[in-house]
């Protein structure tokens, strides 16, 4: 029987399998950031051990950092302490840090790929659930907790039980105005926020093959939002082209060797998945969420479900509670609803292509006077590119505020928060209660849909503008 892509990479990284227990899985690359690493550093220090393979860990500061005046000391004392602790820990333990002020600084899942650190066939972990992003390169990449960060520090391994495998096949051409964010929001709405729990997902099919690497990253990024351990896509020419020439990409003969190796990374035609889902790309419309988990999404021109018609009691109560929090009505349409904030950023949609798409749509237009629009590039390099391409000019003319790189309003750990009760169309990945600030109401959507609302001030079907 053939092997799945997942099996091929997994098998190569198992050091040992404990009888009736998890496997000792070797980790090629470990990313860390200021929020989930301090306790792990403290842990190994208390045990009196040093980092086993410090060169395989790369650090950045992203979750807490301000997105204005990054050259000044961080005002919030606790945030500053966490960032300083990271600097101190990295120095002490010999870990490469791309901290504030470094040209490579940025959201951990944006910088790994853009620097060419993320490469096909690798195992990658980070104390952050959206580590699944790196799966777009044909890697086994998944989020871990702080105890597991400590395990990697101590041994370059984690203990993992092998997940089941699921393949999601998406075939055909996308409708106009539909982008990769809509694909993943559609999938999650279809299978629910727990529909892939226990599985590692491979995305396949002609639609996926036709997407750029950045679009693929958006899809893999949100795998965790349906409960999956991670998501992956077999590497191909598009992937190799993207990696070529990046700072840490293999060079010279090593490049050719890598290509040969990477070309073996696909699921064999007779490989069997524990679960398989087929999706017709033509069925996907621009999507938006109305509730407080990413699975509560609808087509932009659709209606919120009528709660009385939901048979399952748990699910019904869940949606009633979500609608209460969101201040929305059962059965209503969201089109035309005023919003107060637009957030374009996060590890889901803050890469240069996302910002180019937004710029192309808003060029020569102005934002509606009733909305605040915040654009937060995913990394210093993306910010630099935005400037080099003159996109910052377009955004400034439209009345959008462009900030500095970081996680920002995706989780509101810095001062970028949405006020209680107000609506924000966000290109991020989570609409949980209070995620963007206590009481904030988040509607997840694509950068195009967010940009459309920035112009009109209301929830808008992007297809009406193009």
């Amino acid at each position, binding site marked *: 029987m053939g092997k799945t892509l997942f099996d091929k990479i997994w098998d190569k990284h198992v050091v040992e399998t404990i009888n009736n227990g998890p496997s000792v899985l*070797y980790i090629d690359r470990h990313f860390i950031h200021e929020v989930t690493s301090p306790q792990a550093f403290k842990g190994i220090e208390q045990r009196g051990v040093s980092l*086993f393979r410090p060169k395989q860990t790369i650090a950045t500061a992203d979750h807490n950092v301000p997105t204005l005046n990054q050259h000044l000391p961080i005002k919030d004392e606790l945030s500053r302490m966490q960032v300083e602790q990271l600097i101190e820990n990295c120095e002490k333990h010999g870990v490469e840090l791309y901290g504030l002020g470094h040209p490579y600084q940025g959201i951990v899942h944006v910088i790994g790929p853009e620097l060419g650190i993320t490469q096909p066939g690798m195992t990658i972990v980070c104390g*952050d659930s959206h580590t699944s992003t790196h799966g777009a390169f044909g890697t086994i990449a998944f989020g871990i*907790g*702080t*105890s597991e960060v400590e395990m990697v520090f101590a*041994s370059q391994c984690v203990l993992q039980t092998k997940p089941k495998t699921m393949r999601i096949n998406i075939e055909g051409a996308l409708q106009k105005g539909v982008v990769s964010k809509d694909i993943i929001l559609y999938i999650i709405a279809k299978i629910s926020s727990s529909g892939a*729990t226990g599985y590692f997902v491979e995305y396949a099919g002609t639609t996926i093959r036709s997407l750029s690497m950045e679009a693929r990253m958006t899809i893999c990024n949100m795998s965790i939002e349906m409960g999956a351990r991670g998501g992956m896509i077999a590497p191909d020419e598009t992937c190799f082209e993207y990696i070529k020439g990046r700072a840490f990409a293999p060079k010279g003969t090593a490049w050719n060797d890598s290509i040969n190796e990477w070309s073996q990374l696909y699921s064999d035609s007779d490989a069997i998945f524990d679960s398989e889902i087929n999706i017709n790309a033509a069925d996907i419309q621009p999507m938006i969420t109305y509730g407080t988990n990413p699975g509560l999404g609808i087509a932009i021109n659709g209606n919120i479900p009528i709660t009385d018609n939901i048979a399952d009691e748990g699910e019904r109560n869940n949606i009633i509670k979500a609608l209460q929090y969101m201040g929305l009505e059962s059965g209503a349409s969201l089109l035309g609803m005023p919003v107060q904030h637009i957030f374009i950023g996060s590890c889901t949609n803050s890469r240069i292509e996302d910002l180019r798409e937004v710029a192309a749509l808003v060029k020569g237009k102005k934002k509606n006077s009733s909305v605040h629009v915040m654009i937060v590039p995913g990394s210093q390099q993306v910010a630099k590119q935005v400037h080099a391409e003159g996109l910052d000019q377009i955004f400034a003319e439209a009345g959008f505020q462009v900030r500095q790189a970081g996680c920002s309003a995706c989780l509101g750990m810095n001062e970028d928060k949405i006020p209680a009760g107000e609506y924000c169309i966000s290109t991020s990945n989570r609409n949980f209660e*209070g995620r963007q600030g*206590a009481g904030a109401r988040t509607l997840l959507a694509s950068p195009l849909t967010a940009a459309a609302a920035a112009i009109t001030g209301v929830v808008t079907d992007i297809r009406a503008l193009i």
Partner: protein
Amino acid sequence: MKALQKIHSRFVPLPMENIDTDQIIPARFLKATTREGFGKNLFRDWRYINNDESMPKKDFALNQPQYTGEILVAGKNFGCGSSREHAAWSLLDYGFNAVVSSFFADIFKNNALNNGVLPVTVSDNFLQEIFQQGNESTLTINVEAQTITIDTTGASSHFEINPYKKTCLLNGYDDIDFLLSKKELISEFEKSTKE
């Protein structure tokens, strides 16, 4: 990690589905650099009106004196969302040693086990049966036997736990000690893969 063999306690019911880790411990409380002290912010935004400790929300279970104990019982898909281990730390710090639900998110389950908080997965029906018990009733969780019993009715259910994790829990071992003992093997593995 301390050993965990048996829990006999009353329980706190939270019959809501999809409780995500942002609710268990909101992001603004993740700025600490130690593992202690998260309990006071557990379910912070569900516990207080306008984040004000002097204004507890009366209808939230943690604020109702009739509910107490070391066991939290919650609706399905508990712990979804962010991988923050702070969620497990805040439950432990508050005094919960076990969470009972009909379904747990993966990362949360690992994080809980790595901190000696036992995730107990039961059927939807058994979960409903627990929710229907009065606040005086107690539950008994036996790790060795892998059973959870509603003491008032005697109804009992078996739960799954990975045998390796079970040994760790019963003895208070942790994965890091185990991995540290494997360093030589790991070094050999590295050599063998570097052709």
